[in-house]
């Protein structure tokens, strides 16, 4: 309950004026609603007592007016509560997204996008449902319940007390059942998240599944997921409805109580028949707030599990702690000082005592076979992870003290796998920033030799980009354009040119030369072809630096590893 309180306070607090207006509307509408049965009581006693038809008709008209006014006010209150709820959940959704985007690579490698989508979309939506009905219904229900009990108490303290106890008992029982139902509901949601995560994976892997003849295999896995979930889902359904089942029994008990008490009071001469009628009307009306509050508590239960999971996510602290220092402008120096790093505790080191420096404006090629730690090097430069020991320094600023936004706006990275949005070319380049002028985009694309390509696009910058329609080479070029748009002082290319055909590689080579001017460059290269662009070479093996020096010197030294590599790959080196 504490969790909910905090969450409500944080997101509803800023909207206190709207919330109080809504509260006021609810109070008035409840007063009208409670007045209804009292009017009917007056009518019955007047009719049985033989009052004139005129006054009976007036009472009937009054009843219609009072109940109509109650409805209108309720609508207005509910409208405000919707408004308040959407403002609050939108804020939460954005906060959660911002938080998840701030988490380090270690977190993201263990979560599927589908799972995070389910959290940010599914769970937050449940919360929206709960919030929008919270005020309008839970609060309205509570007010109506209070109104009925007060009205009964005024009539007869005995009646008021009995029904107050009855209501308290009902809630105690609801609460108990609700607590018991919790685990089953949590489990079914968890199964759901797992299934959606799996479906999301399937949908991104359709090409692989089709072409390797694995459709039946994934079908088997899908069925496995469904089979695992079925008994859990049925159990959750039973638990969910058990609260309702119990509610029906409690209402039946309430009816029996009203008949018994009403009958006795009448026979004892303590209540006229109109009052007995009113007691029954209130009992029937009582079912409404009890039911509302109960079902809202059930919503709360749904939101409960969601809030718990959202809370867990919000509690995940990035292992990369943001600093305050800024990266200077201009070309940047890079220093790795005795860096140790492994992805998981106890796992083999991805980087082992790595030390090297790159002077501002120099270009370094990092060579090494797959798994030698080249990509890890880039990840550390971007603080997707922090090293366990030693430090990485960029522009003379140790990265552990640097503000991430400053680092990442001064350092550009092109990764092996380019992540594209299903959106226009413009949005893919600008990350949906509407402020970047088209002229600047065209200029960048021209510099990259993509000018003719851009003019071939049917919609220009508005052309929708989809991973399927774009060759991987084009995707890489877009990634380069993204980087150059931000004018970084250090560029890290992780196999940036590995998928380009020779013609494009040449085109790009020219553009790169211009863009590399006045910038420090680290190329994580798998091929010797790229090495033509650099000043220095560093060779990694098993996470250690085994060679580092000026390219020309190493090339000239027949004992060097680089020399050996060049000879082994000579054919290829000459070819391009």
């Amino acid at each position, binding site marked *: 309950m504490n969790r909910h309180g905090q969450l409500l306070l944080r997101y509803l607090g800023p909207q206190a004026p709207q919330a109080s207006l809504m509260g006021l509307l609810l109070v008035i509408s409840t007063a009208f609603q409670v007045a209804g049965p009292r009017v009917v009581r007056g009518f019955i006693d007047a009719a049985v007592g033989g009052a004139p038809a005129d006054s009976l008709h007036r009472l009937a008209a009054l009843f219609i007016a009072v109940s109509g006014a109650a409805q209108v006010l309720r609508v207005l209150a509910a409208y405000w509560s919707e408004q308040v709820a959407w403002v609050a959940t*939108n804020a939460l959704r954005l906060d959660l997204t911002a938080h998840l985007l701030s988490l380090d690579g270690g977190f*993201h490698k263990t979560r599927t*996008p589908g799972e995070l989508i389910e959290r940010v979309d599914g769970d937050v939506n449940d919360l929206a449902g709960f919030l929008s009905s919270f005020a309008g219904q839970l609060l309205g229900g509570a007010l109506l319940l209070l109104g009925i009990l007060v009205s009964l108490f005024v009539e007869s303290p005995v009646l008021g007390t009995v029904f107050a106890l009855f209501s308290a008992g009902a809630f105690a029982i609801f609460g108990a059942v609700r607590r018991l139902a919790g685990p089953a509901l949590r489990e079914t949601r968890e199964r759901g998240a797992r299934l959606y995560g799996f479906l999301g994976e399937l*949908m991104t892997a359709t*090409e692989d599944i089709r072409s390797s003849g694995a459709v039946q295999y994934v*079908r088997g896995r899908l069925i496995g997921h469904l089979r695992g979930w079925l008994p859990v889902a049925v159990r959750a359904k*039973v638990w969910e409805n058990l609260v309702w089942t119990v509610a029906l029994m409690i209402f039946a008990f309430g009816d029996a109580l009203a008949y018994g008490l009403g009958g006795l009071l009448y026979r004892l001469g303590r209540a006229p028949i109109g009052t007995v009628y009113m007691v029954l009307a209130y009992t029937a009306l009582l079912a409404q707030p009890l039911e509302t509050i109960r079902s809202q508590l059930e919503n709360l239960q749904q939101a409960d599990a969601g809030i718990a999971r959202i809370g867990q996510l919000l509690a995940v602290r990035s292992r990369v702690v943001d600093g305050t220092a800024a990266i200077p402008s201009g070309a940047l120096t890079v220093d790795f000082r005795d860096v140790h790093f492994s992805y998981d505790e106890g796992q083999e080191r991805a980087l082992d005592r790595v030390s090297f420096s790159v002077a501002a404006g120099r270009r370094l090629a990092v060579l090494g076979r797959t798994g030698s730690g080249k990509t890890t090097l880039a990840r550390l430069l971007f603080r997707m992870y922090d090293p366990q020991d030693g430090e990485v320094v960029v522009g003379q600023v140790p990265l552990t003290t640097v503000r991430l936004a400053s680092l990442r706006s001064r350092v550009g990275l092109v990764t092996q796998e380019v992540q594209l949005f299903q959106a226009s070319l413009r949005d893919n380049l600008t990350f949906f920033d509407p402020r970047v002028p088209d002229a600047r985009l065209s200029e960048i694309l021209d510099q990259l030799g993509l000018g003719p390509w851009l003019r071939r696009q049917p919609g220009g910058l508005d052309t929708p980009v989809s991973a399927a329609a774009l060759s991987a080479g084009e995707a890489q070029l877009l990634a380069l354009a993204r980087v150059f748009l931000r004018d970084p002082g250090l560029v890290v290319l992780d196999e940036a040119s590995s998928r380009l055909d020779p013609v494009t590689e040449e085109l790009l080579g020219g553009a790169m030369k211009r863009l590399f001017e006045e910038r420090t460059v680290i190329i994580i290269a798998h091929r010797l072809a790229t090495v033509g662009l650099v000043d220095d070479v560093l060779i990694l093996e098993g996470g250690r630096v085994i060679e580092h020096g000026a390219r020309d010197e190493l090339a000239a030294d027949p004992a060097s590893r680089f020399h050996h590599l060049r000879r082994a790959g000579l054919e290829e080196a000459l070819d391009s």
Partner: protein
Amino acid sequence: MRRTASPPTSYFIGRLIAYQPWWWSGDALCWLLFHTWPLFAGLLAREFFILLQGNEPARLGLPAIVALAAALGVSRAGIVFVASIANGQERFRFRALLWHNLMMSILRRPGARALPGTVGEALSTLRDDVLNTAEAADLVFDSAAAFLFAAGGLAILLRVNARVTLFVFIPITVVIAVAHAVRAQLTGVRERSRQATARVTGAIGEVFSSVQAIQVAAAEELMLAYLRRLSDQRRLAMVRDALQRLWVDAIFRQTADLGAGLVLLVAATQMRAGSFSVGDLALFSTYLMQVSDFTGFLGWLINTYRQSGVSVRRLTDMLQGEPAARLVEHLRLPRGGTTRSPVDGRGGDPVGRPTDAEERTLRPPDRLRCLEVSGLTYHHPDSGRGITDVSFKLERGTVTVITGRLGSGKTTLVRTLLGLLQAERGEVRWNGELVRDPATFFVPPRAVYTAQVPTLLSGTIEDNIRSGWPSDAAQLNRAVYGAVLERDLAEFPAGLATVIGARGMRLSGGQVQRVAAARMFVREAELLVCDDVSSALDDDTEQLFWARAFEQDATWLIVSHRPAVLARADQVLEMDAGRVLGTCESRES
């Protein structure tokens, strides 16, 4: 887009019911009983006031009335309990069938263009629209129950006091009819708010599929601003939707009070005269309270039916041109006749065939001798680019390399050939025989493909390599060796059993490519097609990879411009702007 007329929503509901008739019937029976229960409650209230007022001979004493009231409630609770089990089973099974059929349909689509929109949008449809459709099956018995209750209640009231009944129910019916007419206008608003919701879901999907790109570009704020814009649009749409819904709901709710007020007006004189008792008033207002629930319920039914119409349309849209009836096609497994649900096992192997192939090995005459491609044409609908009139021929045991500049159509060519994109024109012949459906034909053991950027599933490396292909340890080891994966495996904590995390993120780009290559090799297919499979490999590994690759008895079609591969080519196809510029025979060795 869709030209064929889709069957009405009721068809899909009917097929779902026919799929699980027993669970559905049990559910139906329970809810029929449940909804007619209040008829007894009204009669009981009337008996109570007759007993108090004494103007008619009472049939029940006070203790009997109290006991009956309690008993009615307890038995109704029992009904709900039984209904929960039936309902839980029924609804989950409906959803399971829909999920299964939708996913199978997606996997039947040309693999490179399987989804109509983003993964996020598709997931939102799989979650919400599948649920809406499954729930729609309850509408049948819910509306039957509503009708039964209405008819029964009206009959009782007419017998008690026909004049009051007519005076009250005629105006109420008019109000309800008007409210329904208004509600019918609301679909447009609902559709708008749903679209706004889908856009937000889509944007969230984009954000979490590209976390790394966003982080390294320091574009968090920009993405959040984008999400904020969409969220605000959605809020406006949702609140507008809610406001309209609230007004209509208020009118429905108001009917009970309006009715009660009318009873008071009409019965005032009769009550003074004693011809309309307090018991009658209690009966009328009990039923009238149900009328408000009932009209609300009726509105919910109509709304749900409409909503399910929208949902069914979204689901059939996901089928992208397949007959809409496949959405609710019942499952049939090859042996043991029909299985009613994907969640019920029959015997040891629930899945039927573990692989897509009819047989693991081909009969000698079916083995590849030559493959001829003529006039193959495909253009991307978005960009208009693609391949035009591509023809070539390849022979058993040869290496054919497709090369060409960026965007020249190399990847499109292999995708179209394999049916991962649906060709507009052209034909492919296997040993001279026309391949009618390339997408189902070019699977192992005939052909296998490794994409430029392969995708792995969460699971162990071994699961990813086998992906259901039956293979013994020796075959698996051969595939691992062929993919130059053995050194990496030796370094992994659990070797082949190492679980790779979300989308294989734990592996480097080169490792992902080689796991995918092992997945290709283990299938021992006749024709191996790969798109730049060694692009993320370092030179040493790449040399080793191709050296081992060309030792295998296979026919190769490779997209590459690596000299190492070109040197081994028997034939090189150079592409430009979607056409083959030239073919050169280049076996030098």
